[in-house]
């Protein structure tokens, strides 16, 4: 029924290179993908099955030469089926969509704070790697619900990695290195050991990312956040008190992901202070925290 177009610039089929589980619910998908995505942009994944038609819009977690990494959580039947797709198979993927983070104004030597919560963390890795390549200093404040993921990758960017986890858990046990993680590490760097050392130095941080943020004065030139709306609202308020603007990446249930259906709107203030509707998929997903009307 959903026949493929021979050549359609909007979406094409791309091969799955790797597909692995990061935590109980979180998966990492690596595609052979040749288009350039800016940090904060997303792609639509299409299952192309007759019963589940809508795209899964997923933020870009990482981009390397010819490779695109996406991290997603199993949240329903669609993502459950997605998790069963295997390397060697192809998936229909859109071109990069949406407006990502503005970073042009940052100069070499300046610093940025990256604040992520849960599945809002993966897109910050693409941002971290992009900024690190421009020699911008990085600090993270990451909040996990339970199992953490991608911490090694953030470490590798040279960032000062701060993170916090919601429920109590056994820290040392958590970071016993899974064999695959050790194998993929750079030679000579045992990230699990680094993390064990961190845990020995500090009390295991427990709470929400907003607790982490409230804990100190952040001396940075730019702030970027991604996570649940309630978290972004609080983060925006916290940073405003410190006199720091923040760019936030909003999540909203989407239909088409490219601006036609008007399903994923948010309310923002225009430059004259009037409330207007914006499409999260094309006008965002990234907005300035100060322009978002949070309780619309």
């Amino acid at each position, binding site marked *: 029924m959903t026949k493929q177009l021979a050549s359609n610039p*909007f979406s094409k089929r791309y091969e799955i290179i790797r597909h692995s589980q990061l935590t109980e619910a979180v998966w990492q998908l690596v595609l052979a993908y040749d288009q350039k995505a800016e940090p904060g942009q997303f792609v639509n994944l299409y299952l192309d099955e007759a019963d589940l038609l809508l795209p899964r819009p997923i933020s870009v977690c990482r981009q390397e030469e010819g490779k695109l990494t996406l991290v997603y959580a199993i949240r329903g039947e669609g993502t459950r089926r997605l998790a069963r797709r295997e390397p060697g198979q192809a998936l229909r993927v859109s071109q990069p969509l949406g407006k990502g983070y503005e970073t042009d104004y940052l100069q070499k030597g300046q610093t940025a704070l990256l604040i992520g919560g849960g599945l809002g963390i993966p897109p910050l890795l693409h941002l971290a790697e992009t900024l690190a390549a421009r020699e911008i200093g990085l600090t993270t404040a990451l909040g996990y619900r339970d199992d953490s993921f991608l911490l090694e990758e953030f470490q590798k960017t040279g960032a000062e990695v701060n993170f916090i986890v919601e429920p109590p858990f056994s820290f040392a046990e958590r970071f016993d290195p899974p064999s695959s993680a050790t194998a993929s590490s750079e030679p000579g760097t045992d990230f699990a050991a680094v993390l064990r050392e961190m845990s020995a130095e500090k009390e295991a941080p427990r709470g929400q990312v907003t607790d982490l943020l409230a804990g100190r004065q952040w001396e940075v030139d730019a702030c970027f956040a991604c996570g649940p709306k309630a978290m972004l609202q609080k983060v925006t308020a916290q940073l405003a008190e410190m006199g720091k603007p923040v760019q936030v990446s909003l999540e909203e249930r989407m239909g*088409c992901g490219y601006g036609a259906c008007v399903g994923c709107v948010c309310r923002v203030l225009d430059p004259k202070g009037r409330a207007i509707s914006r499409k999260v998929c094309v006008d965002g997903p990234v907005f300035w925290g100060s322009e978002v009307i949070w309780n619309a």
Partner: protein
Amino acid sequence: MLEVQIAGVNWKNPVTVASGTFSAREAARWYDPGRLGALTAKGVAIEAWEGNPTPRIAETWGGMLNAVGLQNPGVDSFIEQELPFLENFETPVIVNLAGHSIEEYVAVASRLNETAVAMLELNISCPNIKEGGIGFGSDPDMAARVTEAVRQATQKPLIVKLTPNVGDIAAIARAVENAGADAISMINTLLGMKIDVHNAKPVLANWTGGLSGPAIKPVAVRMVWQVRQAVSLPIIGMGGIMSGEDAVEFLMAGANAVAVGTAGLLDPAAPVRILKEIEQFMELRHYKSVEEIRQTGRMMGGRTERHG
């Protein structure tokens, strides 16, 4: 071979897009919208409407629910900002009219009567707004009253878009035909609901929404066929068209043209792909015109529908 005439307006082919599923600006990034038989704009009201709160979209098996609530910038902003872009393409523009009352429908129709828009589509079938919309479309007398009032406010060919959420759709079709409609488009979405059982609440902020996509196609084909027995007006058929063969089904049921909706949300270029597939079907089955497909449908014989 593909050209059709709908209420006196020449379309170069029988494929348009369903109102509310199409943005010319976005579509133009991937294909020339001028390749379509007509372009149907999203519903526009006399004043700006904010639409419903989010979530507005829910996925369902073989389809989707939407409760956008006819968010639109108002007719003046539409004429200024959107219409000039739509008129860049060598194809007729249809504007879908939204309103809460007969007066509002009349006001927006009058305003558009001064423009170069080719056709108007009266939306008396949106399930996602509290007043107006479906309230007018589910009662033959109300449907006739609003059609008649708008008919008098414009010289443009007037399409009336029908809702499937009625007992006797043929009765509504006859009522709008008698009231002066020039064409019928059908079907709008079927009213539906989805519950997130893990959080024990409806997925849509509006609780209910309109079901579209291939799940509703058999209902739409049946209703087009019923309305074709009841009226002689041109019918623009829609409801879950995903392929050229789906479109041909509507033509055989009695539609004169078709609109692609949900398929375009899954792939912006779906309307032009479906057009190409219709062409391929016609070559394969040796049809020389779209009208010939429709006539074939009439000769299928069998049961004649009289009572809906």
